[in-house]
Structures are given as structure tokens and as C-alpha cells.
């Protein structure tokens, strides 16, 4: 692993340089929000920000994507195009919680039996540069409760740590090292900088006050699919789906066809377990008929089913669902309440 130093005032230039050569996604300010955007000519990436409003999963698993195009007329139907190959890209400024979500999503989309070619292609061609949370940005952050850490490097190719006057850059993977060549001459990190990073890392974890017994509720979930507690959490839910759309790990999708005259496309779009139509069958039967079952599904999927299947909690503790829920449903409180049952 190469460990280098990047001067604070040169980082923006380095990222802008990369964007001349390849696609760079980076956090930018747009009105009141910080969002991941494609860095176009003249745009500058933010290097000081809290976190983006949108999770970066959409660069690997877009909100909508065309899986194939077809031609349909009286003579029949024909496949006309499958998607082009992904381009080399850099995803800059990812918070460690969001980077961990890629590793979790890999379990689903890069499953050895059924590999998702659309996702895997983009994932393989994208280099992830993270920005460690020296100052965890929100009171809703709880990564340390779900196996994460504000300095986690899971899912990261190059990790950046803000040491105050400069950045410590760790080139963790071969993809990361390949990018080093394009970043100009960066001095090797000295021991003092590395020691400083270690100290900041410990301090950052201490600063995360929100504690949730993420793993500890699993035995209760194993035993209590039927329990009066499930009658309580969904009561105020509007079924808007915001939590699932902002969630870095939610991966449910729908597949639909759109045809205009002869041309058509088969599209994959994000879907949400919060919607009644999600499991509605043609016969009229719905195995999850009310918001109660749908909420149970969401919680069970994150804290039990995913753990059963992949030994990982499908939550990275980013806190987006807590911050943006219009009726203030707080998944941390639900987990805490369960732990008291």
C-alpha cells in the first residue's frame, strides 16, 4: 500500500485534472443540498462538506436504467441493443459509511451464481476515493453500531484523511494505485502524519454518540416474526418510500417495458418495499397486505434476513432515513425499542 501526502490547496486541482480524462462523480453544492454529480468542465468538487443528500449507489445501480432496447412491429419483435460497456470512472468524496454500502450491495449483485452484468461492469471500472469523517457530520450518524467506523476503508480504493493542513492519501487497492500515476508527484507520508491519522481515527469514533444495538436484536428478530410490537412502528408511516430511495443499501427494483411506436426499452427502476403494489399478485392476493407487514419486512431485511444470508447488517448507519423521514420515524429508536423487549 502506498501512503502519500496531498497538499490541501492542490486536491481540487487533482480531481479536476482527473475529470479531463475520465468520468468523475463528486459532491457539489446545488441550492441547499450537497449532491453527487458528474463533474463537468469548469465544475469544482467540494472537499469540505457533511455528506451528500443522495447515496452514491446510483452510480452502480442507477435509479432507472435501460437494460435493453427492442423493435416491435407487425413482423414481430427484435432485440436491437443491449447497453454499452461502462466507462472508467472515479467516484470522489464518498463517506466511509456509503463506501461500505458498495461491499454490501456486491453480495447481492455480484453473487457468483447470478452476476448482475450491469452493476458489476460499472463497479469494476470505478475507483472509489473516500473522505474519512474526522468530524462525524450529523447527530444521526451511527455507523459504529452497524459494524462501520468513521475511518472505515471497506469498499474504498483510495482513502483520504483530512489532517488539518494536508490530506493523508492511502492507495489501498491496485485500482487505487493505478490512479496514483495520474495524480502527479505526491510526497510519501511521514510517520508523524500516519500517527496523526491513527489518533484522529480513534477520536472520530468517540464522537459518534448515537448507539444502536444493531447486532444484538437479531435473536429477538429470529423468534418474533409475530409480536404485538409490529403493530406499533408503522402507525405514522405515510408509505412515501423516502427511506428506501435515500438508503445506500436498499436494492429493490422493478422491471418495466416502455414502447413508443416501434421502439421500446426494458427498464429497471428502483422500487420500494414500502409500497403496497410491491408484492401485489395478479390474483389479488398480497402477502404483505398492510404497512405493518411492509415495515416488518424492511426492518427484518436489514437486521435479520441480510445477516442470515451474508453475515452483515444491511444498514451502514448513515442516518439519511432518520433525517429525511417526513413523519420522523427513527430506525435507531425502533432498534433500541426492540432491544428492550
Amino acid at each position, binding site marked *: 500500500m502506498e501512503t502519500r501526502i496531498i497538499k490541501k490547496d492542490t486536491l481540487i486541482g487533482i480531481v479536476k485534472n482527473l475529470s479531463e480524462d475520465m468520468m468523475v462523480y463528486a459532491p457539489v453544492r446545488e441550492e441547499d443540498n450537497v449532491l453527487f454529480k458528474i463533474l463537468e468542465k469548469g465544475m469544482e468538487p467540494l472537499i469540505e462538506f457533511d455528506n451528500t443528500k443522495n447515496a452514491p449507489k446510483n452510480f452502480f445501480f442507477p435509479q432507472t436504467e435501460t437494460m435493453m432496447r*427492442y423493435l416491435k412491429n407487425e413482423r414481430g419483435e427484435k432485440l436491437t441493443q443491449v447497453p454499452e460497456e461502462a466507462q472508467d470512472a472515479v467516484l470522489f468524496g464518498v463517506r466511509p459509511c456509503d463506501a461500505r454500502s458498495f461491499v454490501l450491495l456486491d453480495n447481492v449483485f455480484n453473487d457468483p451464481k447470478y452476476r448482475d452484468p450491469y452493476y458489476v461492469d460499472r463497479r469494476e471500472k470505478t475507483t472509489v476515493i473516500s473522505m474519512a469523517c474526522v468530524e462525524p457530520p450529523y447527530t444521526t450518524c451511527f455507523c459504529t453500531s452497524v459494524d462501520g467506523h468513521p475511518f472505515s476503508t471497506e469498499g474504498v480504493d483510495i482513502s483520504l484523511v483530512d489532517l488539518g493542513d494536508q490530506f493523508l492519501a492511502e492507495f489501498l487497492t491496485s485500482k487505487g494505485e493505478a490512479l496514483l500515476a495520474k495524480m502527479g508527484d505526491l510526497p510519501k507520508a511521514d510517520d508523524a502524519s500516519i500517527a496523526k491519522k491513527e489518533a484522529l481515527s480513534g477520536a472520530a469514533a468517540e464522537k459518534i454518540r448515537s448507539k444502536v444495538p444493531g447486532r444484538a436484536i437479531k435473536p429477538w428478530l429470529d423468534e418474533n416474526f409475530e409480536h404485538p410490537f409490529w403493530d406499533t412502528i408503522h402507525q405514522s408511516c405515510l408509505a412515501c418510500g423516502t427511506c428506501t430511495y435515500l438508503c445506500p443499501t436498499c436494492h429493490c427494483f422493478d422491471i418495466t*417495458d416502455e414502447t413508443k411506436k416501434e421502439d*421500446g426499452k426494458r427498464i429497471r427502476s428502483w422500487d420500494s418495499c414500502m409500497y403496497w403494489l410491491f408484492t401485489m399478485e395478479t390474483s389479488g392476493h398480497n402477502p404483505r397486505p398492510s404497512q405493518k*407487514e411492509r415495515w416488518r419486512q424492511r426492518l427484518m431485511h436489514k437486521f435479520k434476513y441480510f445477516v442470515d444470508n451474508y453475515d452483515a447488517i444491511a444498514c451502514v448507519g448513515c442516518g439519511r432515513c432518520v433525517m429525511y423521514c417526513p413523519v420522523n420515524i427513527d430506525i435507531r429508536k425502533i432498534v433500541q425499542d426492540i432491544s428492550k423487549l
Partner: protein
Amino acid sequence: MPVDVEKIVTEVSTKDIKTFRFTFVNKEDEEQFKYLPGQFAELSIFGKGESPIGIASSPTQPGYIEFTVQKAGVVTSELHSMEEGARMGVRGPLGNTWPIDYLEGKNVVVVGGGFAFTTLRSLINYMLHEENRSKFGKITVVYGARDPGLLIYKDELQLWEKRDDIDLNVTVDKGDETWTGREGFVPAVCKEVAPSSENAVAVICGPPVMIRFTLPEFFNLGFSKENIYTSLEMRMKCGIGKCGRCNVGSKYVCKDGPVFSLAELDTLTKEY
């Protein structure tokens, strides 16, 4: 995989259940489409979408694949309006299979109700095939429909009836003036036929009400939950365990199922 609709058979008097025979446009696709009874595939019609349907033919019938489809939603309605010679798509095979290896060397009891007989028909044809018949013990079939007009695969039932290596029991809830066969509900017929549970496995597929009343009969006959298999249905999109809607507990019906033993189902949540 592109396929051509080679043959369409209207199975029932209400005309809303048809069997579609597809041939592969590309020879390589046919070789790739290796399946066993119990699996399903996504039938694809561009502009309408995909629909997951159990495979009704048996791999012992090479050259084509068959699906028996009820007209219900967008895709299946379009399918029902199609004519022989039309071209469409098939994506699969998907899911697990009836436990063929486990059934070998055992007596097999097949119980089907209504139009849920499709992958059971695949299994029966598979077991009856000359290369396979000796691998299985006694084959007992109980198949029921509401009335004679709703029995599917009528020609095949007649062929099976003539064979002495399968004990076929066809029943209807209520017969009509032409019906000379058995009358009675599937659970009652199972009780009457009383297949032995000795070295036997039951494979049951049908409407929930039939399954609910049939299971106690099999428990009475001494079948354990490990030796009763069924197949589940859920709304699906991807069919490969990614789109997130067909899970029952931590299992996905599309990828870990659709075939489960009752013992396995007992370990899962009751959300289907």
C-alpha cells in the same frame, strides 16, 4: 432467448388456460436451457414485460418447452392473444427443482389441484420416461379439478390411464352428464386412495384451500414434513434473488425455491 410459438392448446372449457409450446430460434439457446421438473422461466413479450411461469414440459421431451398459462395479467393476456408462429422470449430456467435425486428409489405420490398441475405434469412425464421409470418406485397420482371441463392435459391423462406403471386417480368436485369418472374433493380422494407412507414422498401443488385440507390426510397416513414437498408462488421481477420482493423470511422463492419441503417451510415465516 428468442423462441417461436409452435403450438397452442386451449386446455379448459373456460378457454382461459392454454398450453404454449415454444421452439428455440437458436440451437445454442436450446442446449443452454437445461432444466429439471419444478423449475420456471420468465416469459417475455417486449412492450408488455415478463411473467414467471412453471415449465410444464419435461426435459425428456427434447426440441421444445411448454408452459401452461392462465390468462390473468398484462403479459399473460397478451400471450393468450398470440397465434402460432409468433416470436417472443424466454429467460431461464430459474429456481430449484422437484427433489429428483431424493425421489429416486422411493414411491412417489403426486397430488395436484386445478391448474397448479403444470410442473407436476413435468415431473410425471419425467418419471414415466423409459430411461427413468426404473429409478422410481410406485407412482400414485391424485389430480382434481372443479369440473370436467377444467381438467388440463386431458389427452395425456388418457394415455397415463392406460399404463400399468402409474396409479392415476382423476377426480372432479362435481361431474356433468358426460362424466363417468370419480367425483369428490382431492383431500377425500387422498384419504380413499391412502397411499402408503412407507419409503414414499408426497409432492403437492394446488390452491391453498386444497393444500390446507390435504396435508392432514398425509400426516394421518404417516408422511413426515420432510417427505412432503410443495411449490410456492410470489410476485417476481428478476427471478434471480436481486429485486427483493419474493422473499419469505431470508429465502427468495425465485432463487432458493420455488420448491420447499414442509419441514423447510416450517423454518420460514408465514408470509406468502
